[in-house]
């Protein structure tokens, strides 16, 4: 195949602290604006969704991954390729449901929450909810409807951060031609 773009191994390094600070500023401003954790969670999910629908094209353009045949393959691609490409971490895929339509991503460390502690008055805030929106938006653009939520969160006292992803259905409207 053709040579890979020279941007896959991105030579533009950004300070990850700037990234953590930017995300933190975003969440705290949302908290000030909405003053309600549920609302902030919803907004983070929406923002993540808008990021996801654009990020998927970048992901597909830069990696040569083709269409995944089943949900297991999707899980592997998300954990091993996508998370690695964008956050530099490789979560593990575990806790498959018997029907094979639900799994968990266990993140040992989450770059979004370096140096972050949740105060007591925000204990229903899902700080990294942006990630759920990103995953949902990206998969929707490749015709998969999924439900993504945080099952465990180190910010709220658990040992690991666990994202639970459930396959809902294949989106049949507007299928690109050639996909049956």
């Amino acid at each position, binding site marked *: 195949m*053709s040579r890979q773009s020279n941007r896959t191994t991105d030579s533009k390094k950004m300070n990850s602290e700037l990234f953590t600070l930017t995300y933190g500023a975003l969440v705290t401003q949302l908290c000030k604006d909405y003053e309600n954790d549920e609302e902030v969670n919803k907004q983070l999910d929406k923002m993540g969704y808008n990021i996801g629908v654009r990020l998927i094209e970048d992901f597909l353009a830069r990696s040569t991954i083709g269409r995944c045949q089943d949900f297991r393959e999707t899980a592997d691609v998300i954990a091993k390729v996508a998370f690695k490409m964008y956050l530099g971490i490789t979560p593990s895929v575990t806790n498959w449901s018997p029907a094979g339509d639900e799994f968990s991503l266990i993140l040992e460390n989450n770059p979004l929450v370096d140096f972050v502690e949740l105060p007591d008055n925000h204990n229903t805030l899902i700080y990294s909810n942006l990630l759920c929106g990103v995953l949902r938006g990206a998969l929707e653009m490749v015709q998969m409807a999924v439900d993504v939520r945080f099952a465990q969160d180190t910010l709220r006292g658990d040992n690991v951060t666990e994202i639970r992803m459930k396959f809902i259905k294949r989106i049949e409207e507007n299928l690109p031609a*050639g996909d049956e």
Partner: protein
Amino acid sequence: MVIFSVYVVNKAGGLIYQYDNYVPRAEAEKTFSYPLDLVLKHHDEKVVVSFGQRDGIRVGHAVLSINGVDVMGKNTAEGKDILEYLKDATNYPVSIRFGRARLSSNEKLMLASMFHSLFAIGSQLSPEVGSSGIEMLETDVFKLHCFQTLTGIKFIVLADPRQSGIDALLRKIYEIYSDFALKNPFYSLEMPIRCELFDQNLKSSLEVAEKAGNFGAGS
């Protein structure tokens, strides 16, 4: 070795970007005296030659300008009907430029949505299951290459049949789209792309592809 044009079609089949890289080669400007020996007729809002091929002026060529001033569809720039103008002996001698009419943007929109449907037919006609849509369309003058992403966007490149490296070029255009169109927060998905950076980067990658003749190791 030339790349003629690039089209980008969204999921619904609407044209969201179009770029023409070619200069029409066949244009002829001639001075005529009364009476005009070419037979002209109206066709699709243009005036075209229907009979009387000579000196580089072919049947099907449209009237592009009269006396150096571009025409507007069926009328001269002043709004007079061209055929009436040319029947009047007092307007001669007149210098008319003929050439192959360029597609108007409406025509391009229609052709793009037609291609979108044909693309789907390509996969439906297939005897084997799981066929892709139309990937290449070949004529004696150009080859049309089409690449559909997993998200349903189609990138279409019309190039010289001998031009190689189009597959790699299509992927490069996909990268440019994902960078300069999608990462622009003011660009809404599925809408026409009006991003300067996208234009510039697309043009330079076309130049690279044309010069290389062989963009990357692709076919």
